[in-house]
């Protein structure tokens, strides 16, 4: 009896705390563009003694939840760093049997061979999983006003994924409630490099149109992959990285110049509504100055520029 009363009291307290937390996040000052680095699927699976594939599946579900929440709360753009160009080089797919360290060193050529097979298997699995994610959720996105963009190095993406992505982009072209950017085979350096190559091409082709000296920040920003959503919201206001790693790892290099960074120890499959709310309220507590003295000064400078 007593334990039941205690349990009811506890759940009441919890619900009240949640409601206060929800109210504490002010809807008028939410970030317009949130970027997420979903790190920690493998560690999550390892901690539970499951296969890495299960970790990635759980990560997928967390991505779907984050997309749904972002749309509900009125965030304009959500970018998810699904697959990095550097992920092609990861040595081990499945949790190693002989050690728990992150970086097992292959000590003979047989292990190297197994590793490379594992690696290819994992990459293929991930690509198939991403394709499944897009295909399964396409109807929901089309219905709910979510527009899908896929950015990244197309030459490294498998052909089936490319065609699914193009199809999904076509289907959701007219939506505008939430722009969902999936960064597949993407890296910040690659993005800047491809923009640089495009600009170099333009300089040489139309010899009188563009000179090398005319290239400025706005021009370069317009050539980046994230400019598909328009230059105003191309730069994320908040970047969330899970699993405690305090690095940017080549994600949205140019665009993250003034982004607030939020690092959390939660692993990505565990990232839920509470963690997201915490990240948003942390964002709202920060004063963004953009190099000027105070936030209000920054705002007035921005207004003058417009």
């Amino acid at each position: 009896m007593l334990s039941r009363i205690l349990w009811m009291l506890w759940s009441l307290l919890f619900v009240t705390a949640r409601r206060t937390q929800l109210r504490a996040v002010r809807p008028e000052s939410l970030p317009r563009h949130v970027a997420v680095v979903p790190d920690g699927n493998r560690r999550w699976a390892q901690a539970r003694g499951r296969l890495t594939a299960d970790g990635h599946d759980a990560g997928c579900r967390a991505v779907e939840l984050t997309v749904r929440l972002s749309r509900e709360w009125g965030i304009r753009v959500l970018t998810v760093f699904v697959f990095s160009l550097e992920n092609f080089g990861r040595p081990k797919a499945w949790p190693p049997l002989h050690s728990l360290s992150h970086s097992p060193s292959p000590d003979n050529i047989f292990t190297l061979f197994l590793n490379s097979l594992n690696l290819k298997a994992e990459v293929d699995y991930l690509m198939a999983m991403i394709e499944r994610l897009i295909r399964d959720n396409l109807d929901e996105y089309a219905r709910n006003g979510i527009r899908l963009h896929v950015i990244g190095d197309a030459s490294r993406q498998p052909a089936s994924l490319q065609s699914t992505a193009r199809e999904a982009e076509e289907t959701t072209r007219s939506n505008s409630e939430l722009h969902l950017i999936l960064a597949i085979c993407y890296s910040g350096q690659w993005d800047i490099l491809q923009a640089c190559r495009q600009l170099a091409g333009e300089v040489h082709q139309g010899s009188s149109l563009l000179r090398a000296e005319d290239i400025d920040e706005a021009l370069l920003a317009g050539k980046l992959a994230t400019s598909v959503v328009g230059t105003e919201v191309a730069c994320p206001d908040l970047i969330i990285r899970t699993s405690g790693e305090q690095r940017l790892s080549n994600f949205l290099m140019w665009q993250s110049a003034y982004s607030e960074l939020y690092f959390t120890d939660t692993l990505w499959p565990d990232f839920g509504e509470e963690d997201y709310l915490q990240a948003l309220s942390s964002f709202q507590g920060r004063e963004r100055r953009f190099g000027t003295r105070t936030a209000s000064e920054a705002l007035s400078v921005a207004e003058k520029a417009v």
Partner: protein
Amino acid sequence: EKILSSSGRGALPLSSPSGASGQDKDPHSSVLTTTAGCSSICSPSPSPAYPPESAGLSLPSCSQAAGRSGTPAVLITITGYMKIKKPDAMVATGVLSSVQNFLRKCLIAVLSYGPMPNHIAFIMDGNRRYAKFRSIQQGAGHRVGFSTLISSLLYCYEMGVKYITVYAFSIDNFKRDPGEVESLMQLMEEKINGLLENRSVIDEINCKINIWGDLDLLCEPVRLAAQKLMASTAGNTGLVFSVCMPYNSTSEIVNAVNEICAERREMLQREHAGNWDGHDANNSVHSEISVADLDRHMYSAGCPDPDIVIRTSGETRLSNFLLWQTTFSHLQNPDTLWPDFSFRNLVCAILQYQRAYPYLEQNRKLAKKQL
């Protein structure tokens, strides 16, 4: 124990910092007096922990120094409040400072067992807040920040860190109040000229100073002083100290792109002069632009990427600093304000880095295989 305040008999003339350590003064008393010149950098003489000196302002340095050496801060702070225009006097006991030195060296030796960073980058945030909290003029906060910079530089040198980069002034900071920008420029000019005149610190650590940024945006005297400083230390082979001023990472990248395009245009023109196969030459040239090409044209060409990026005062953003170079750097944001950044904070930073090192190193190796 005798305590000499800044108005007391321990004050020595302003002239040279290196001659000022009064270790041989009075062997019987447990008081040691050291003074340093107003506008000079603290001397890396063997005795003290590198005490920060602020140029001509008694209050912050006294209270900070007193806090460090543990002598009664009250007396010195009161003297400081009276704004006595005597040289800054720092009081410490001889025994205490040698014990401090010894402990510091032990700590550094212990830390060196783990992986030590080769390149540390600092975003020096919090000077104005420091000034506000201590109710002193804003410009004074920047001056104290400068002395913290020099002491951090010397601590890093002692630890064996070869490259240090600091974010001194952003191109966005030009949007601030013109009075503040003017005072910052004056401070920079003063400090650069001070470094040019008094080379004891630079020569002691054989420091090469780089100034990264769009120097054309600086006013004439500052730019000339900066260029002179770079030229005079170009031949040094020890610590490499890079000051980013005025700097924006996005403009650095655009600058690199400009240079690459201009370079390619020249190459093409030379090829055109050679053969008329213009169109094919176009395509082949553009697909060859690589990450290494962009690296070459960055201001930081020749320097390794930072291992740690420390942003003080608790803000968690990069603010357009070294975006290209910090892909695998460990980002840290301690809550201390920059003028309060001390040896202890530096040790904590390195410990955190050492904890994250295996994972960082693995990812760095993987990335190098790919790109």
